[in-house]
């Protein structure tokens, strides 16, 4: 799919409820240390959902150029910090690369809800001339891509994918397409930060958030007591480049992107099944792999009983009941929407590097019909070469990505 060129992941940057920095995040995931707690960004008392995965101790002015702070939402600030880590990690000097051959493609979902809420408050409390000019560039879904492009001088074919929780895989799919047609390096992945009253109320409208007021008992994917999911903020920025460019730069890579597929669920009244099974099959075909080549599946893990069952059925249909190890470290962070699938990819890449499949904290009893080999304590399998990451976004977005060792 890339003119014979391998696509390599060469840099990771993580800003997550589990930790700031890829290593801090990985250590927390291994230890099963949850980042879910009572919301502190605002007083959640009047709301039916009071728990979320917040990024702790992130002060924008410490992490982001000061001039950029007043014109960006927290979601973009998290991404700028994560991109700094990812680019350092990749050891790349972007100024030495042709500016039109380096690009940014991020995943976005909520956009600048916190920034926007403040401007709406200015509007309603004071009037139109009180809305700050930066609202024009802070809220919209492409702001992170734009700010990264400007900051790092990346003038290649930049863009943004909005597929809610699936977008992080779609952004990498797009990055792969670009690397097949003249782009040398892509800064990809994504973040989200919608833990403000306006953001939370928007999320509540899906009806899929859990109202269980217990950080350990609220988000239990595939469990008999599944009651929905919890939201979180953060994500991961991922540097991808062709093998040729990486070798030329003399940099080590984490993993290879072996295959990718995307689809969209049919309307509920059509009687057709959800897209996930076919997307898994097409991703395997794209990678030229068979189901038994896959060593672990990082599940979408919606936590909503019907969606859990649909995912479990799709996985079982392809891999056989309990036919592959399945895990979802995202119970430690909540679902991160625009940042969620990107963080899953970062975690999967780290799992491959360390040879350890992290566990799924929370679920203790599988729901009927969920015939999965769910990893509930960390495993060091004999073989951890190929990982599949699944992601489904609100409304029907569905994507799958396959990662291999280098």
């Amino acid at each position, binding site marked *: 799919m890339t003119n014979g060129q391998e696509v390599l992941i060469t840099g990771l940057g993580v800003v997550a409820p589990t930790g700031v920095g890829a290593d801090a995040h990985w250590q927390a995931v291994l230890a099963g240390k949850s980042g879910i707690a009572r919301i502190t960004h605002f007083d959640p008392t009047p709301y039916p959902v009071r728990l979320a995965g917040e990024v702790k101790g992130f002060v924008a002015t410490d992490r982001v150029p000061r001039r950029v702070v007043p014109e960006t939402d927290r979601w973009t600030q998290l991404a700028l910090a994560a991109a700094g880590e990812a680019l350092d990690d990749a050891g790349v000097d972007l100024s030495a690369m042709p500016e039109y051959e380096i690009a940014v493609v991020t995943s976005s979902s909520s956009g600048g809800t916190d920034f926007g809420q403040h401007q709406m408050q200015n509007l309603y409390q004071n009037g139109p*001339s009180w809305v700050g000019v930066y609202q024009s560039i802070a809220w919209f879904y492409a702001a992170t891509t734009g700010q990264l492009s400007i900051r790092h001088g990346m003038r290649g074919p930049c863009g943004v994918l909005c597929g809610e929780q699936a977008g992080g895989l779609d952004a990498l799919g797009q990055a792969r397409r670009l690397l097949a047609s003249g782009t040398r390096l892509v800064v990809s992945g994504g973040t989200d930060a919608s833990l403000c009253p306006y953001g939370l109320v928007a999320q509540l409208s899906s009806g899929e958030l859990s109202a269980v007021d217990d950080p350990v008992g609220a988000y239990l994917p595939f469990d008999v007591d599944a009651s929905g999911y919890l939201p979180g903020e953060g994500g991961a920025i991922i540097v991808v480049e062709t093998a040729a460019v990486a070798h030329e730069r003399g940099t080590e890579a984490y993993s290879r992107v072996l295959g990718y597929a995307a689809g969209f669920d049919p309307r509920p009244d059509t009687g057709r099944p959800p897209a996930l099974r076919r997307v898994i099959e097409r991703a395997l075909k794209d990678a030229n792999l068979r189901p038994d080549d896959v060593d672990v599946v990082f599940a979408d893990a919606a936590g909503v009983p019907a969606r859990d069952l649909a995912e479990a059925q799709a996985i079982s249909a392809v891999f056989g009941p309990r036919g592959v190890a399945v895990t979802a470290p995202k119970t430690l962070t909540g679902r991160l929407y625009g940042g969620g699938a990107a963080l899953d990819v970062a975690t999967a890449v780290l799992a491959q590097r360390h040879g350890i499949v992290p566990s799924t904290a929370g679920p203790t009893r599988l729901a009927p019909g969920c015939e999965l080999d769910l990893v509930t304590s960390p495993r060091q399998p004999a073989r951890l070469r190929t990982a599949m990451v699944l992601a489904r976004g609100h409304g029907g977005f569905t994507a799958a990505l396959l990662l291999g060792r280098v």
Partner: protein
Amino acid sequence: MSTFTLDDLRELLRRADEHADLDGDIANTQFVELGYDSLAVLEIASEIQRRFGVVVPDDAVLAMPTPAKAVEFINALFARCGA
């Protein structure tokens, strides 16, 4: 408020960026060289609008490439509005 001075403008510029270097002779330095892009200048124009109750037209940014031009423009605006 009858005249708007360069020091008044400095105060607004500092509000937008407290670390900016505005102490020297900045009157004829392009805003963009001082680190203020067109959106930053528009934001300063909006602040003037809010503070002094004058209507600042949207294309004011084009008339204000430097601090000196900005001060001139704002004083002309005040004179027209009787501020």
